[in-house]
């Protein structure tokens, strides 16, 4: 019995570590080779060097692509989150006809392959007589980011007591002011999450950007894909890749920490039950 349990525990540990390695080994490889002096990413490591970082930041094509992706990412995060608030308000209305249909339409970009969306957008732009541009990339990214925003904001909105808005109305607020003073501040934690998820969705996106970004103005994933076929550029891409991995880690940790901090500031610390009772007793 004890032996069996020992075997079970050992295989569980083995599975766990195999899983961790499977997930993180590629990331570790990137970070390790970013500091390799050799121009080809093969073992053994020749020597420690930061020259690929220096070269990467001197490469204006590369940094230009990074800035474009960051700008489109921020714009997508803001715009998709704003649309996400509006959609969520609409979806949580008590009387909404064809609710299931509206939800299906709004969440459709989650299941439609991005490549199909990209082709569709390209044809649409042509028919409208418009040029492909970074604006088109931005609009495409808003379409694919919106479902994520709704999936983050709507549950938060649903969790708010409907009586809160009624209380604001009862105390003299119009509909708009009740939203601004009560609903919006209480949504803030979910809006931060929504912004970050939409930003990452846009920053990472390749298919739509590769169709809609104009020649000479690639977003970072598009530049990366093209550059990975140029062996001379590979070490620089690995160096930037390692920076993005670390930055992502920092953002994720900050997002969770920031959400808790905001929640804390928003609602205040909940007093433990025992303290509540004694407060009551001294008060009565």
């Amino acid at each position, binding site marked *: 019995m004890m032996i069996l349990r020992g075997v079970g525990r050992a295989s569980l540990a083995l599975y766990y570590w195999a899983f961790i390695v499977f997930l993180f080994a590629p990331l570790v490889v990137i970070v390790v080779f970013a500091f390799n002096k050799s121009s080809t990413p093969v073992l053994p490591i020749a020597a420690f060097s930061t020259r690929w970082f220096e070269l990467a930041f001197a490469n204006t094509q590369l940094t230009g692509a990074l800035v474009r992706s960051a700008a489109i990412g921020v714009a997508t995060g803001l715009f998709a989150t704003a649309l996400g608030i509006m959609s969520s308000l609409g979806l949580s209305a008590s009387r909404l006809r064809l609710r299931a249909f509206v939800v299906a339409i709004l969440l459709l970009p989650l299941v439609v392959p991005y490549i199909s969306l990209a082709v569709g957008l390209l044809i649409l732009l042509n028919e409208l007589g418009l040029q492909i541009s970074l604006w088109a990339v931005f609009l495409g990214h808003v379409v694919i980011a919106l479902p994520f925003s709704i999936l983050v904001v709507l549950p938060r909105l649903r969790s708010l*007591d409907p*009586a*809160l808005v*009624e*209380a*604001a*109305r*009862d*105390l*003299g*607020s*119009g509909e708009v*002011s009740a939203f601004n*003073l*009560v609903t919006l*501040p*209480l949504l803030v934690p979910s809006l931060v999450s929504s912004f970050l998820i939409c930003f990452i969705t846009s920053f990472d996106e390749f298919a739509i950007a590769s169709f809609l970004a104009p020649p000479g103005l690639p977003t970072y994933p598009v530049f990366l894909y093209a550059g990975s076929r140029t062996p001379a550029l590979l070490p620089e891409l690995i160096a930037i890749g390692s920076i993005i991995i670390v930055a992502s880690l920092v953002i994720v940790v900050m997002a969770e920490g920031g959400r808790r901090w905001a929640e804390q500031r*928003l*609602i*205040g*610390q*909940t*007093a433990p039950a025992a303290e*509540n*009772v004694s*407060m*009551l007793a001294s*008060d*009565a």
Partner: protein
Amino acid sequence: MGGEVRLVKLVKQFGSFSAVDGINLTIPAGTFFSLLGPSGCGKTTTLRLVAGFEQPTSGEVLLDGVDLAGTPPNKRNVNTVFQSYALFPHLKVFDNVAFGLRRAGVDRAQITRRVGEILDQVQLSRFASRKPAQLSGGQQQRVALARALVLKPAVLLLDEPLGALDAKLRRQLQLELKALQEQVGITFFYVTHDQEEAITMSDQIAVMNSGHVEQVASPREIYEEPSTAFVADFLGVSNLIEAQATGPSGDGVALQLGPGITVEADRGDVAARGAVKVVIRPERIRIEPEGATGTNRVAAVVTRSVYLGNGARVIMQLVTGQSIVALAQNADDDDAPTWSPGVRVTCSIPPAAIRVLPVGAPRSDQPVSAP
């Protein structure tokens, strides 16, 4: 100072369901008025119609004679204390209470003064800079009350505001609420399903049942003289008995409880004849030894008795078959009888303790005027 609410033929339908089914009600200015009924009877919907959160399907809500139809909640001179309190979790106690004053554009100095005063009044001054989540349930309840009262509304609407509190705190706050209402003189329109709460606090009670008003009266009258079987039952009368009204007897009516067993009833609809329902207050029934004679006495057997501390609830079966409950006070002497099951006794029921309910209960579609 105003604050009279009149509901005229008020109807609210949700789809084909009538939550409020033609209510006529006058809530006199400056009174503590309770709407009492089981859950789902339409009492909260009625309150929401007055607050403006729901629009009536038909009928009118009048505040001091002015129809409120089309006036949004933020323009009505009424304020609400919600069942869930609905305190703004992101605002401190002070800002919660100041919320309405700020919307009304009151200047800063006056806001500070008025919020300070009302927080003093509900004994929460030292919690002004806390968030609602840092307060106990009873304190949150008082913040909700202060937040509404600071605006000096003509009518304060309260939707089961004590429902979430434990029994001891609830009883304490009942008395505080009543004292507060008398102090501020504002009309309190109070919705509750708790009959004890309504009786303790109210000047007037309207008992509601499935969308209509069964009876409007003072607590004493509601309790002592329920006009329908529903009111009697809901107010916790244990003895609702069927009998035959056979003819006049003394000042009242002769009631046949069973073959050869007739008692006299002096209260209620003494002109009724035929099958009637009667209400007998448990505390008015005297339990006498077996064989006691006289009028309005019926032989019975004790089936169960429950010790209540200050007395006992004795459940008996009358010789005519009906079950009846009596409240027996503790006697001073030690050799007082004990009511163990199987003991044969005589129930003495004074004619004034028996109330004949009117056949065909009055419905709210006939105008009900508050006395």
